[in-house]
């Protein structure tokens, strides 16, 4: 089990909030990563492909930069593998598409817009994820 990362959480969360403000102030867009990704994978040239691809590239570049700045590898400890990991990826892809968003678009931006859809979505996926973890890690193991 990991000790809570209080300083990292507060600083990292602030950066995420600042990034969302930059996108709204500069481009007038919501920082919803699943939605931005859809525009890239469908190669939709009618709907801002260049800025979408640039944002996705920036996400990866930010994580590269972290490794240089702090001179350490990204902290990644996988919690699933093989078929279970593929299933999880499929569900995240289908779910964020049908549900019009994920933790960033609904969670960070939608709640700030006081959007009822985002508030309901965030409450739903949080609750379902908690139940999923409870079932897989306590009931089934």
């Amino acid at each position, binding site marked *: 089990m990991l000790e809570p990362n209080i300083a990292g959480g507060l600083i990292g969360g602030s950066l995420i909030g600042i990034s969302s403000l930059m996108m709204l102030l500069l481009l*007038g867009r919501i920082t919803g990563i699943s939605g931005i990704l859809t525009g890239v994978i469908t190669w939709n040239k009618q709907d801002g492909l260049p800025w979408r691809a640039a944002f996705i590239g920036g996400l990866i570049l*930010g994580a590269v930069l972290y490794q240089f700045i702090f001179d350490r590898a990204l902290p990644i400890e996988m919690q699933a593998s093989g078929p279970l990991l593929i299933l999880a990826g499929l569900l995240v892809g289908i779910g964020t*598409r049908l549900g019009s968003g994920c933790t960033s678009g609904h969670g960070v931006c939608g709640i700030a817009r006081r959007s009822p859809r985002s508030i309901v979505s965030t409450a739903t996926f949080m609750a379902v994820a908690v139940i999923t973890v409870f079932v897989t890690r306590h009931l089934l193991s």
Partner: protein
Amino acid sequence: MKTSVAALLSGIVFGLGLAISEMINPARVIGFLDIAGQWDLTLALVMGSALVFTVVGFPLITKKAHPILAEKFTLPTKKTLDTPLISGAVLFGIGWGLAGLCPGPAIAGLASLNPDIFLFVAAMVAGQFIGLKIEKTIA
């Protein structure tokens, strides 16, 4: 061009935020979701501090006539709490709980060159295409 540079910079700040907060680590996310285990509050701090900025900043920014680099704000227009919204959130919640990965951290995590992250992102992209097909069918 300017919009791409602005989006690139925003993406970098977001990716750095995901790495510094360690939301890029599935173990952190599962630690937060596992309320019956040794609960890790980090994710709540991340979301809370991001929300401090967006809750205060969004209303101030959308009061402007238009964004700096675009003619108008492009905000979600749907208002109804419909079946796709709820069923999508349920499916996403199951996937998130199984792997501890959501779209942002998964994409930023590609920088680790971890093959498992590539596998997850490939499945997620395939899932989005399936989602688009379902949307077309039910529309």
